[in-house]
């Protein structure tokens, strides 16, 4: 038995919400896709996966239920890189069967890394994928890439099981609670069987950056504004008084020094109310800019770090059994979810050594959701926009991409939707 070390870890603060809110429709799984310019070979991929896992002990875990809390336990289950066999972002966590909480699959030129959110956030998973792809290419092309130095990751960055929330939480009072009205809700027919509808658009990042410079703002804000406008174009008139609220994940590593390979992010809500503004791009961007500035201020970020800690340290909450906590967290999650229309997440730039660039075509990321969510990721000169949606129709996606093409930005679209619907 290899279970001689008894290594285990509490779930990090932000991850505590994921096991209990994971459902078939939204299993809290996100997926990174790397598209190579050549067919993926299963043997070397498996080899690369095993090498990578040695650097990321945080991924070699199963999730178990304790009396009071969930926890992660080191496992000796061996992951297998297999051909893509189920719809994207299918459940990875099962209460009754202990399995690893991530999965590597491949299909033709694509390598997919699907991760249950309780294990890590986008940053941690992106590191994993970078190492995996780098190792894979080294194995497949030993002549060209064999001599390359290892990736520039910090060992602690991959191994740290640190809960950075605990580290940075303090007793600062929370700012006065903002009264948030019920946000606009997207409606529509849902995909059957809880499947996720994914539309990935690829565009040259330069064109997008030029566009955002013309608007004198950042890329993330432009994306938010475009999504808000796309949602507006599908909004029924009777809902106009409801604000369109987007949840924007904030990577707290950019604001607090942390080398955690686990979850360290927070979510800020930005929104626009069409009954109060003129709905022009300038006005939306102006509103967003104010909200971003406020949301990313140090005091506000500190408050976000403190947000959950108080709850988790509460003695009564601690000694209540897990099933009670699950119930309470589900209720809380649902009430937060009601205040959000959709979500936009700009994961940022993925860096790979220049020598491997000739083998790579593009990267993409998307996440399971009960609503609709946009994730974007930049690699080299390409930015990918991935809309994942629980709804069967693609009206908002169409509006979004038509805005881009109307600005003269070429877009290439790929989707998992089958044609005969």
């Amino acid at each position, binding site marked *: 038995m290899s279970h001689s070390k008894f290594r285990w870890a509490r779930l990090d603060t932000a991850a505590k919400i994921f096991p209990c809110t994971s459902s078939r429709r939204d299993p809290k799984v996100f997926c990174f896709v790397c598209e190579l310019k050549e067919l993926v070979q299963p043997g070397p991929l498996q080899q690369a996966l095993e090498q990578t896992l040695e650097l990321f002990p945080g991924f070699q875990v199963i999730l178990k239920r304790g*009396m009071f809390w969930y926890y992660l336990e080191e496992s000796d289950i061996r992951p297998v890189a297999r051909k*893509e066999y189920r719809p994207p972002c299918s459940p990875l966590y099962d209460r009754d069967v202990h399995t690893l909480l991530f999965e590597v699959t491949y299909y033709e030129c*694509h390598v997919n890394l699907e991760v249950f959110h309780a294990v890590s956030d986008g940053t941690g998973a992106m590191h994993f994928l970078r190492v995996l792809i780098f190792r894979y290419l080294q194995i497949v092309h030993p002549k060209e890439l064999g001599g390359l130095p290892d990736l520039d990751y910090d060992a602690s960055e991959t191994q740290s099981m640190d809960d950075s929330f605990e580290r940075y939480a303090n007793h600062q009072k929370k700012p006065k609670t903002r009264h948030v009205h019920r946000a606009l809700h997207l409606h529509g027919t849902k995909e059957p069987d809880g499947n996720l509808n994914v539309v990935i658009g690829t565009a040259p990042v330069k064109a997008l950056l030029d566009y955002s410079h013309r608007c004198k703002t950042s890329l993330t804000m432009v994306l938010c504004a475009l999504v808000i406008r796309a949602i507006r174009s599908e909004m029924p008139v009777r809902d106009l008084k409801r604000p369109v609220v987007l949840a924007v994940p904030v990577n707290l590593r950019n604001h607090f020094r942390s080398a955690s390979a686990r979850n360290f992010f927070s979510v800020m809500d930005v929104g626009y109310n069409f009954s109060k503004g003129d709905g022009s791009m300038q006005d939306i961007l102006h509103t967003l800019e104010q909200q971003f500035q406020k949301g990313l201020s140090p005091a506000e970020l500190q408050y976000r770090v403190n947000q959950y800690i108080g709850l988790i340290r509460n003695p009564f909450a601690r000694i209540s059994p897990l099933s009670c906590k699950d119930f309470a967290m589900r209720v809380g999650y649902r009430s937060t979810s009601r205040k959000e229309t959709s979500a936009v997440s700009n994961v940022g730039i993925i860096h790979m050594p220049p020598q491997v660039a000739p083998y790579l075509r593009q990267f993409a990321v998307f996440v399971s959701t009960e609503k609709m969510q946009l994730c974007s990721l930049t690699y080299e000169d390409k930015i990918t926009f991935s809309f994942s949606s629980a709804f069967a129709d*693609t009206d908002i996606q*169409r509006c979004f991409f*038509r805005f881009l093409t109307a600005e003269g930005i070429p*877009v290439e*679209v790929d*989707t998992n939707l089958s*044609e005969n619907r």
Partner: protein
Amino acid sequence: MILKYCDKCKVSVRGNREHCPLCNAVLHGEAEPSGFPRLPNEHKKHKLWISILALSSVSACIICLLLNFLFRKHGQWSLFVLGGVVCMWMTLGLALYKQRNIPKTMVWEVFLVGLLSVLWDYFTGWRGWSINYVLPIVSMGVMVVLVFLSRLFHVAAGSLIVYLLVDALMGVIQLVLLLTGCITVPLPSLLCVGVSTVMLAAMLIFRGRKVREELRRRLHL
């Protein structure tokens, strides 16, 4: 090579498809493979035997209710049938819901069967058969099965410890019932308490460290 192109949306589209996924307009151009595999449409198949069983139990209930309504002088015997069917579906439903983990299911079933039999016993004029026989025999049986079949089901050592401990709770309940004098036929309960104690002792002696570690993890605050 010009990709499939949609004139309405002005986007190129990957995959061998006739229509634009965004606006359903007709595409033209050459197809480039899509990054998403065509997966078989896997609708969750409802098992036929469950449907047959469900229909037969519903019809049995209805027939009994109707017959009971016709021949009222024999009392409300159809309620027994209804209760029986409901209990059967509760135990079966639990087993089906948790079927991916058989050892865990067995432990849950011990408690469900125990509870249901106590209820039956109570509502049919307390004769004590539930606590005298059902509880000790079921919990003891599951404990023995767990120990001997743990290899077969590939139960991880940590999980087995927890399942046995939870099942041993039943032994504790038996002991309380014995001491308070609720149990009138003591032999099965005594056996159950004995087996539970021996099992606990064996676990502590052979796997003491593992038990402590598992408990520390499972009970951390």
